């Protein structure tokens, strides 16, 4: 069971993850007075694409899960349904006029462009993780082992 101290620590960590970036982005937005519309379109496109593709990746991981569960069909069918729902939702929203269209002429072009953008974003996430995680790992592994000090009896 979570203690109040653990909960406050979790909240503090979540705030550290979000607030600095949020402040930075808000200050950029405020100073440039860019339109919100393009950002919203990009957000929805990214969300739908990410949902569909991550569902697909999780669907593939179910084959490993199936090895330990006598290859059940039900969860596989559930995830296939989710992937299809993601594709259908994306296609539906993209075909609603200019609602989610960016600089692409057709629904198919926008759909494929979303996937390429997702791949680019994923590459950026991987490199950023290498930078931060690598720095942290290098520092942790270079810390001398600590001596255990026993108190005098």
């Amino acid at each position, binding site marked *: 069971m979570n203690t109040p101290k653990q909960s406050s620590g979790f909240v*503090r*960590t979540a*705030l*550290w*993850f979000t607030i*600095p*970036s949020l402040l*930075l*982005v808000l200050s*950029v937005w405020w*100073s*440039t007075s*860019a339109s919100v519309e393009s*950002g919203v379109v*990009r*957000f*929805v496109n*990214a*969300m*739908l*694409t*990410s*949902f569909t593709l*991550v*569902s697909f*990746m*999780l669907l*593939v*991981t179910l*084959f*490993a899960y199936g090895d330990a569960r006598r290859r059940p069909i*039900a*969860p596989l069918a*559930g*995830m296939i349904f989710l992937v299809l729902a993601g594709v259908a939702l994306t296609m539906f929203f993209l075909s609603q006029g200019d609602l989610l269209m960016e600089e692409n002429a057709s629904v198919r072009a926008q759909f494929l*462009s979303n996937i*390429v*953008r*997702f*791949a*680019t*974003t994923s590459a*950026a*996430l991987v*490199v*950023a*993780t*290498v*930078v*931060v995680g*690598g720095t942290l*790992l*290098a*520092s*942790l*592994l*270079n*810390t*001398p082992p*600590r001596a255990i000090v026993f108190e005098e009896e």
Partner: protein
Amino acid sequence: MEEATQAFVFFWCAGLLFLTGSLLSFFSKGALQRKIGMGFVVVGLLSLLTTPWTASASPSSAFGHLLGSILGPSVLLGVGFYQIGFSGHVPVGRLSTSDRRIGVLMVVAGVVWFEAMHWWTLTPTYPDEVNRSWLIFWPTMLLFGFTLACGMYAVIGQIGDRRVREQRLMVVVALFLMALMVMGLTMDGPSLAKERFAAELLLAAADLFGVLVGAAMAVLFFAVVLYFYESTHVPVHLPAPTEEQLQHAERIIADNVLGGEEA
């Protein structure tokens, strides 16, 4: 070959091969399956990297060009951090001090290379303007790196014990990445104006937030699907033991627990 077919074979099929291969090599238990997965990854990656030549007419080939452009500095960073880390206080397989120096040089070279891609003439240009994928990659990398460094600062404070040095290091990384973003927002680069960088940074924020929300929703639904499947498997209820079975169990327990006096 027709342009659309070229893009389908060399980009989309290669991408699918790369994705399937990485999942297969990561999750498979069998050595053969993992090897096949790695083969898929190598073939897929090579095909993606060569799309500027094999599917040059497709706009998607800009991603292949970006991959080729960032491969060098990314490998330098990854191997460099590995060299620094494993030349430290690790119990087995420790690398030498010269490996550590090489690692530091590799990391510095990787960072300088990335910086030169924004502030010098190494900006990925494809076909004759700044690569569209680079405009997405660079602000997203800076913003997510900054977010991660800030978050890790808190995580180390939360779970670490006497890890002040690591916390300070995370502050340095966050400030460095923030300085890069502020520089990009206030100064024109040789191939990227500050206004364009600001617009791309805002779109990167929207992109990043969308990707994280979408991924979180997919994981949530995945958990729900598995929960419902597992909850349908209620363990079979056995009938209560009979008097005879209880007496049998009692005899066995008594024989093993009570023991006897040694002769």
